């Protein structure tokens, strides 16, 4: 289970800013945008184990 690190307000803000990012990228480039975003966030997290955990959690229930 991924620990909850952010407050609800922070999660909501992240939800909005990523939603708007996807729209700004446009339909054709949204996958590229999301891959770049995930990679940048992985770098900011700075922990390979946590990145692997997030990848595993994100692959569930697609």
């Amino acid at each position, binding site marked *: 289970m991924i620990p*909850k690190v952010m407050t609800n307000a922070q999660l909501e803000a992240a939800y909005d800013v990523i939603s708007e990012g996807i729209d700004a990228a446009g339909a054709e480039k949204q996958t590229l945008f999301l891959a770049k975003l995930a990679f940048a966030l992985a770098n900011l997290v700075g922990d390979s184990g946590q990145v692997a955990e997030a990848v595993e959690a994100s692959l569930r229930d697609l």
Partner: protein
Amino acid sequence: MHLPESEPRSSIYYRYDVHPFRRPPEMSGQASDAAAVVVGAGPIGLVSAINLARFGVRCIVLEQELQVSHGSRALALTRRSMEILQQAGVAAPFLAKGLQWNTGRTFFRGKEVYEMLLPHDPDDRFQPMLNLQQQYIEQYLVEAAQAHPLIDVRWGQKLVGLDQDAEHVTLRVDTPEGEYDLVTDWLVAADGGRSAVRQMMGLRMEGRAYAGGFVIMDIRADLDLPTERLCFFDPDWNPGANVLVHREPEGIWRLDYRVPEGETAEQALEPERAAARIDRILEMVGQKVPWELDWATVYSASTLTLANYVHGRVAFVGDAAHLLPIFGVRGANTGLQDCENLAWKLALVTQGRAPRSLLESYSTERVRAAREICEEAGKSTRFMTPPTQGYRIMRDAVLSFTLSEDFPKDLLHWRTSRPHAYSDSALNSFAAQDGQFAGGIRPGETISNMRLGSDDFLFDHLATGFQLLFFAGALPPRGAAAEMLKVAADMQPRVNRVVIADTPSDWTGLADFVVIDAGGRIARKYAAHDGAGYLVRPDLHVCARWQRFTEAELRHALGVACGTAMEGAI
């Protein structure tokens, strides 16, 4: 000539009364003596009239139809709304008929992914939510309004023109027997989302409307389910959309679902199409029982508000003032807080006991509340009806996570309507002394109800008007406290003195109601020491509080709350 529908609306369970048009005295040349006219006999117009009458204002309610509205519509009343109805003296039939509840369950791919428990304090008389169809809400309010000697409900009368000057508002009213002019001091526009008053005055709302409609319908079905809010995301028959299920009194169920993309409202309401979907929804809740349709319509979400609710002698309340999404039960519940806020102020102004500027605080306080709600409800709406592809993908991502992860689940909370705190109101005073309180109820917030016995609560005992909650604690009914309470009895407008004391003593002549708080529980909830006081507005919002105070300070706070004194000018 206005000719309203005179046949009762159709329903499989509700009998619509058709109220007769009565020729008003103004059509025979008599002048009206009503200080206010309320346009619209929906829940907000009727509670506005009942509250104005409660404060002694004679008023007329104009309603263009001859019967209450069609369908369950508003349906869910919050605890705060029930408290407002209790203060208006009309809560009893709502409690007798309505279904109270506090739980919401959210399902995704057949699995319950989120349970929302709305908080319930043992000191609250009412549960967080009460479901009651709008027909009944209006019927009970009509009965109360028509029984009140100061209220004249006029059925089948349509506003067709309005004009105002510095002194009066002149309304042009059309009826089955022709038109007449009605002159009054104040107009309360409670004529709903398509407000004729708003249109006649050329006022525009700010904010946004969301694309995409929701079908809302009432069916009768024998479902064995508790009273809860059920929400289903992404059903296979309507990918990406969602379904809401609410229980209503009389064996009726409310179903709400998103109109599938590419479909018009008319197509969504085609009987065969709707019937197939009702079957799918009943399948989803696991009870494929026979059903009968009562009413259906299509609704779309908006977060829109006027920038100002008072224009000259016209005040806007409810959907006439703002259009808010149903997610989080924002419509009627916000409107009830509007009319609770407006009524006492308008009463003081019409009676010449407060300056007209007091009404500015109505607009300031309620526009701010509406904007806060637009912001919050916008978030729920963006989750329920994603406006763009980006929001849609993020919503799907969160739903997918909820099947295995907890961290994003609170994004499924629908941010229920709650009372707004008027923290920055110009009617609050003595902010500098607020640091003396370690907690309690802050200025601008609504006071807390308190359980006094098994079926006995503080709010049951509040009389109309301002309240002074005086925390006597161990103080005797003598000396400075007694002097202050004696003087408070003669203040204008009236202040009801509620004395909260540790032990029974003789407070005769000093208190309008005495509460024995043996364990000091109430004092702790209000963070009050012996001798503390809370001055509470007629709408139950705190406007000043002190751990120790004088008669002059109380008088000043009352003046600030009525717009007759300036904060800090004591």
